[in-house]
Every structure is written in structure tokens, then in C-alpha cells.
């Protein structure tokens, strides 16, 4: 182990923006004796500290690994441009926050891949660490490079760069990976031996052990393991019960996004919205019992000193004990200054009651709802039915209960969308604004946020096309003009900034070349509005001789083999197809708590379903 020269480091930290991002030293940071442990991990979130430190997955794994006496986990994030320049100029390899050890000296580098637009940053992070980019260029002298996170359900675009992917919940599999690493290390074998042993762990995907054959037109003919014993399909891992809440959340010294205590109250969602990747890949629903939530809050407040807390889930209203929870959280915290936010509420008056239960604990500011589509037809297509009466009744209750700011999320570019569906967004926003003004006067502010739909792998819309950016732009222009006239605030993404996510989401391993070229052309921080330069990418596609339209704009037959078909979320492709066909017929499906639709999850995981009442699963 060689530590970074502190004198040199201090000198250039003096000149970079927000140097506190790079020095660690936060409350609850864990700094262990390097020589007192067997295996050393570094957990990387390939974006700046300000974003990455807020990632819950990283915090969970950091604490779980550091709780083991024979292991240590440190952290690293992407340096901002000024810091990157300083590192390159002084020839200093990227280092960890805790002990300032070069990343290349760790045993295992674990990278979080929460979304696709972070991929070029992964390459940049490896390069800054002095680690060869491609898995095939690395041997037993280099750290094992593993990745996990929501984007890994289609690992193929990153197949060239990552040694092994952990598919699904990482809380258990991380220790199995470490154990395999330790056994391999004790035997002094080559890297291939390690990869083969990793591939035998349930939920671990080692892309180099698979081969892909293509048809002449570029579609996938088949994907198969090259090595005997490697599974044909990798089924994701789940934690049957949610891991214990974080006891000692790191309290950053510099301000980050979501700078607050995070308590996960439920994982997964039963709603079945057809566009929603998180809703499929995080099945089944597992909820935390109220006692554990209250304990987590108590511990969190004492361990961090934060005065803000967020109860996290994909759909807070669906926790079966949510009313008890909000009441108890109020009773628990009414005598301290704690602001509690409860995001992702269903559109119904009950949600307003829930917020009311928190009384003075709820944060100032607005109420947020996500109708996603504005016509009954479109809402049936995406399986998020919501009669207009309920929407307006809810909005009325929101205003009547004192809220003045209302934010509404919608999507455009959905499969089968017509101009009338977009026009309806404007009409609804206008009606909502009029209602607000009638009830509460001119102080009411309505804010509409528009997202562009991107077809995601493992969802019923994985067969659908992405709308081309020009046509999306027309819809945005229409909304912008209409909202401007009505003085309704509108926010939206630049249509071409969603292109990248669309290419990569349903990409195959041939895109590895494109990602590498794009990075060489200068692409990084693609998730940032000012970061994404589409020219880098178009040039990269050209250099790799690949047509970008192949990934977003072509008919996909129902029998097509997808690049991610050998990765299983537990939800069957047949079920997704059935859902896709229902969406084309405008048919909806009830929340699966009301009856099982046999998506496949229980077939895969019923053997590990806990039978205590306290560890509730959403499946019937």
C-alpha cells in the first residue's frame, strides 16, 4: 500500500472547488487499520461526492462490510473536472476518501451503476485509478472490478469493463463474492479461476464467460455460457427481509443532495405501471414493520444530528401500516425539530390525510403528485388508472388543507400517444390552477414537470419504440407555449439528453466499443445537462460502425431475443408480453396485492419467503 503524499495533495486541494469532497473525515466515517483486515473493498459511485454520498445502496453496503472485523470498505467518487485535471497534471492516481490509498491497491472495487448515463464516468474512474479499462486487460495484480445497482439488470453495454455484476439486492451476495475472492487468493490462482468461481454464486453474472451470436441484421441469435457449469440464466438475488436500517449514516461535511436521514420503509411496488423499471426489478414488495422504522428514526437522529428525514419507498401509500407509521412518527418527534418527508404518495385524499398526520413535522413547500398521463386512454395504456374525478377531488383536498404549491409529474412520448393526450396535460394543469385560485387565491403555484418516456428492459414496454427527439420537441414546444400563457411553471428535459439513456438502456455488448470511443472523444458526466455532448456519441457510433437507431427506433418482434434475456428479474418474459399486449388493447390490471397475476416472482422466490407476520411481502 502506498499512501498519497499528503503535502502534494494539500497543495492542489487548496485550488479546487469544494475540496471538502475529497478529504473524507466525516462524522461516522469508518477508518480501519489497513493491515488488520483480510480483504479491502472500495465502494465507488461514479459521480461527484455531492450526488454519490446520498446513495442509499452505497451507505448500506459500507456499513454492512465495515461491521465485519476482517473486512474494510472505503469510498471513492468521481472527481470534478478541476480535481481531475489536478490529478492528471501531478500524476496522482485516484485515491479513497478514508485512508487516501490509491484505488488500484484495493482488493475489490465495487461500482454502483444506478443509471446508464454514468457509464463513461466508470471508464474515467478506472483510468484515473491507473486500472486497465477492459476486464480482459486485467489480471490478478489488479483489483477485482464488480458492479451492482439498478442499471445492472441489463449489464451488457458494460460487459467489456466489469469483471462480475451482482444482479439484484446486494446485501447478501457481497459477502459471498468476498468469500470467493478470499478462497481464490489463498490458492494463488489466475484471474480466470476467480471469474469462474464467481459465476457459480447465485445472482452473479460474469459476462466474459458468455458468448453472443448475432443475426446478419444485428439482432441477437443467442447468448450462451462458454464454460461448463455457468448458469444459462442469472436470476437476481433478493433480501427476503429488508436489512436492518443504517445505524451510523455518514454526515457529510459539505452539502450534498438529499442531505438528510434516509429510512427505507418498503422495497418494491405492486402497482404495475408498465413504464416502470423499478416496479418490476424490485419485486416482491417487502415492507419494514413500524417498530423498526421508529427505532431507525430514533437511532438516525441521535447518530447524525440531522433535522430532516425522508421515509423512502416507491409508493409510500401502499405500506399496509402507513397510517400507524405517520401517527407514531408524529408522536415520537413532536418535541424535537425534525422535518419528515413522505414521498411517492398515491393520488387520493387519503394521501393528504397521511401528510396531515405528520402535522408540523412535514416539510414546508409543496405537495407532489404523479399522474404521469392525462387521458383515461393513455392511463390505461400505462396501467396507472386514475379517474379525473379522483384527481380533482385530491387536488381540491390538497388546496383545502393549506398547500399552495402543487407539483405534477407527467410523461410524454409514451407508446401510442396522440397529440390529444398531450393537450390534455395542459387542460388538466389549467383546471388545477383555476381550482387552486378559486380556493386559495393568487398565491397558488402549479408546477408541471415533464419527463420523456424511455423504454426500459424488463418492462412491458421493452418492445416499444422511443419517440424521435424532433417529435418530442414539438410536444414540449406546445406545452411550453400553453403553460406560458397560463403562467404555469413547466420543467422538462432536453429531448436529446434522453437519447443516451435510450441507446444504453436496451443496448447489447457491442456498445462497449461505443462507450469507450465516446469516453476517448471526451464524454463524461453525461448525466449532467451541461455534460452530455451528443457529438461525442454520434462520432463514437460512427467509429464503431454501429447505427444508434438500431437501439431506439425499429420494430421489435415479440419473439426477438433481447440482450438482457439471460438476466432474470424473476418476472417472466411471457408475463411482460401479456402486459404489453394488454396495453395495446387499452386494458388495465389490478394491483397485484388484490390477486396474483403470476408474474413469476413467487415461482422463483417462494422458498425463501419468510413466514413471520412481521416481515410482510406484498404478494398475496
Amino acid at each position: 500500500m502506498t499512501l498519497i503524499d499528503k503535502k502534494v495533495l494539500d497543495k492542489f486541494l487548496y485550488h479546487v472547488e469544494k475540496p471538502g469532497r475529497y478529504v473524507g473525515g466525516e462524522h461516522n466515517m469508518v477508518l480501519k487499520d489497513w493491515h488488520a483486515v483480510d480483504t479491502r473493498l472500495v465502494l465507488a459511485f461514479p459521480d461527484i461526492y455531492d450526488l454519490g454520498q446520498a446513495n442509499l445502496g452505497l451507505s448500506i453496503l459500507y456499513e454492512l462490510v465495515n461491521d465485519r472485523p476482517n473486512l474494510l470498505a472505503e469510498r471513492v467518487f468521481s472527481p470534478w473536472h478541476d480535481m481531475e485535471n489536478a490529478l492528471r497534471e501531478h500524476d496522482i492516481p485516484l485515491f479513497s476518501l478514508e485512508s487516501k490509498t490509491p484505488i488500484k491497491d484495493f482488493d475489490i472495487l465495487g461500482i454502483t451503476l444506478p443509471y446508464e448515463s454514468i457509464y463513461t464516468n466508470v471508464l474515467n474512474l478506472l483510468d484515473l485509478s491507473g486500472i486497465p479499462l477492459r476486464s480482459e486487460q486485467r489480471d490478478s495484480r489488479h483489483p477485482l472490478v464488480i458492479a451492482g445497482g439498478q442499471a445492472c439488470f441489463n449489464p451488457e453495454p458494460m460487459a467489456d469493463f466489469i469483471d462480475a455484476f451482482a444482479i439484484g439486492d446486494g446485501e447478501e451476495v457481497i459477502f459471498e463474492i468476498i468469500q470467493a475472492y478470499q478462497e481464490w487468493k489463498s490458492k494463488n490462482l489466475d484471474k480466470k479461476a476467480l471469474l469462474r468461481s464467481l459465476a457459480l454464486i447465485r445472482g452473479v453474472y460474469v459476462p466474459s464467460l458468455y458468448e453472443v451470436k448475432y443475426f446478419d441484421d444485428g439482432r441477437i441469435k443467442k447468448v450462451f455460457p462458454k464454460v461448463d457449469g455457468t448458469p444459462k440464466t442469472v436470476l437476481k438475488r433478493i433480501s427476503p427481509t429488508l436489512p436492518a436500517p443504517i445505524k451510523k449514516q455518514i454526515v457529510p461535511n459539505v452539502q450534498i443532495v438529499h442531505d438528510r436521514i434516509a429510512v427505507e420503509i418498503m422495497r418494491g411496488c405492486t402497482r404495475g405501471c408498465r413504464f416502470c423499471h423499478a416496479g418490476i426489478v424490485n419485486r416482491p414488495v417487502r415492507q419494514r414493520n413500524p417498530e423498526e422504522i421508529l427505532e431507525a428514526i430514533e437511532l438516525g437522529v441521535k447518530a447524525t444530528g440531522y433535522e430532516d428525514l425522508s421515509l423512502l419507498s416507491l409508493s409510500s401509500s401502499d405500506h399496509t401500516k402507513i397510517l400507524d407509521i405517520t401517527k407514531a412518527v408524529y408522536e415520537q418527534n413532536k418535541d424535537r425539530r425534525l422535518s419528515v418527508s413522505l414521498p411517492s404518495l398515491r393520488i387520493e385524499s387519503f394521501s393528504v390525510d397521511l401528510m396531515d398526520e405528520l402535522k408540523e413535522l412535514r416539510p414546508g413547500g409543496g405537495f407532489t403528485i404523479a399522474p404521469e398521463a392525462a387521458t383515461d386512454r393513455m392511463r390505461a395504456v400505462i396501467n396507472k388508472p386514475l379517474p379525473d374525478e379522483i384527481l380533482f377531488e385530491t387536488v381540491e383536498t390538497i388546496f383545502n388543507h393549506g398547500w399552495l404549491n402543487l407539483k405534477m409529474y407527467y410523461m410524454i412520448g409514451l407508446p401510442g400517444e396522440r397529440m390529444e393526450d398531450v393537450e390534455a396535460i395542459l387542460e388538466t394543469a389549467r383546471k388545477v390552477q383555476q381550482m387552486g385560485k378559486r380556493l386559495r387565491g393568487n398565491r397558488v403555484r402549479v408546477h408541471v414537470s415533464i419527463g420523456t418516456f424511455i423504454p426500459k428492459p424488463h418492462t412491458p414496454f421493452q418492445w416499444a419504440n422511443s419517440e424521435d427527439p424532433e417529435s418530442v420537441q414539438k410536444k414540449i414546444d406546445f406545452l411550453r407555449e400553453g403553460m406560458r400563457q397560463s403562467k404555469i411553471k413547466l420543467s422538462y428535459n432536453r429531448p436529446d439528453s434522453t437519447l443516451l439513456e435510450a441507446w444504453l438502456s436496451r443496448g447489447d455488448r457491442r456498445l462497449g466499443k461505443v462507450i469507450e470511443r465516446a469516453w476517448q472523444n471526451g464524454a463524461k458526466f453525461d448525466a449532467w445537462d451541461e455534460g452530455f455532448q451528443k457529438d461525442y456519441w454520434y462520432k463514437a457510433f460512427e467509429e464503431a460502425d454501429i447505427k444508434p437507431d438500431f437501439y431506439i427506433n425499429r420494430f421489435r418482434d415479440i419473439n426477438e431475443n433481447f440482450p438482457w434475456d439471460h438476466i432474470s428479474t424473476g418476472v417472466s418474459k411471457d408475463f411482460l408480453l401479456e402486459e404489453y399486449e394488454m396495453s395495446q388493447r387499452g386494458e388495465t390490471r389490478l394491483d397485484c396485492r388484490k390477486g396474483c397475476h403470476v408474474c413469476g416472482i413467487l415461482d422463483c422466490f417462494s422458498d425463501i419467503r419468510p413466514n413471520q407476520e412481521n416481515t410482510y411481502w406484498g404478494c398475496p
Partner: protein
Amino acid sequence: MNPITPFRVRIKFAKSENLRFIGHLDLQRLFERALNRTGLPLRYTQGFSPKIRINIASALPLGFISRAEVLDFWLNAPVDLIEICGKLQSALPKDLHILDIQEIPNKAPSLQASVLLSEYIITFPDTYAQDDVNASLFDIYEQETIQVERRGKMVDIKPMIKMLKVFIEDNSTKLRLQMDSSATHNGRPDELIKLLDIDPADVIIERVNLIFEE
């Protein structure tokens, strides 16, 4: 409303190592959270969004270290000072070290209003000899004004310099420097260092004393 008289506590603390790269606003937030973790009966500011009442005497520029920072906070009830010190120290990161703690009359003037001067010790790299530094500083100080640029405007910092003394300690050339540190006249030692054609990142600037109005 807080009917009882607040218990006002003043601490002096050192800021070193990693924490030197944490700016003033972040430091304020850090203290709020650390105080919150102590479980002490903290007093909040009045108004629409109350905050823990904290008053830091003088913002320490990013990159400087210090053994003389001063901060006031208020409690709703008297607590033994040794207990406060113990609880707060264990809630603080290791690079913030409490040096002194005392009770202050609630009516005492605010720290920011009464701070006058800062005293710094600047340690030069080994390559800088005492005589050279001395000569360069003499040349600068001999001029009628010492102009530096602040946000596009030229400012004369000569009147802000109250003491300059070059000396040798532990084989290093050092400068003892007193400068204005009031709300209206705030001297920045790094500005003087730049005039010597030295990158402030190459020296260690430590605040060693804060001088208040009597």
C-alpha cells in the same frame, strides 16, 4: 418563546488537517449537527424557520488551519461546562478540537461585532530563507499602498496590516502577521503571500489568535 435567561457558552477550538478544506457555511452546518447530537438543551433562533443559535467570530478562509477559532452557542438551561465540553468534543470530527470553554454573560456583545484583529503564523517551505522573505516583505511594505484585487476592484491592504515579523522556528522561515479582521476591514494573509510571488498553497497559514475589543 423561551422565558428563561439563555445560558451562553463560548468555545475556542482548533481546526486542522482535513477540516481545513471545509468552508465557513459548511462548518456552521457541521456545528449545528454536532450540537444536535450532544442532546444538550439547545436554544434556537426566533422566527419562521428556527435554527440552532450559533455565532462564529470570524470566517476562516478555506485551506487555513487555526488554533484560535471562537464560537458562541446558547442553551435553555445552565449545564456544567465540563459536561458540555465532553459531549461536544465527542460529537465533533477529530480535526476539530475544543481548546477552551467558558460561560459568557448573555448580554455580552456579539462575537462578530467585537472581533478586531487576527494573528497568523505563516510557515514557508524550506527553500525560502529568512533574509529573502524579510527583504521581499520590506520592499512591499515600503510602498505607499499595497494594492490587491478583490472582485474586480483594487483595495489597499496596507492599513489592514498591524504587525509583520519574520523569524525562524524549527528550521523553517515563518511570518507572524496581525491583520484587521472586523466586518468592514478584513485582511487576507494569502493576498500578501501572493504579492511575494508565492502560491498560498505552498505555505501553511495558521490563525493563532483572535483579538477582540475589550
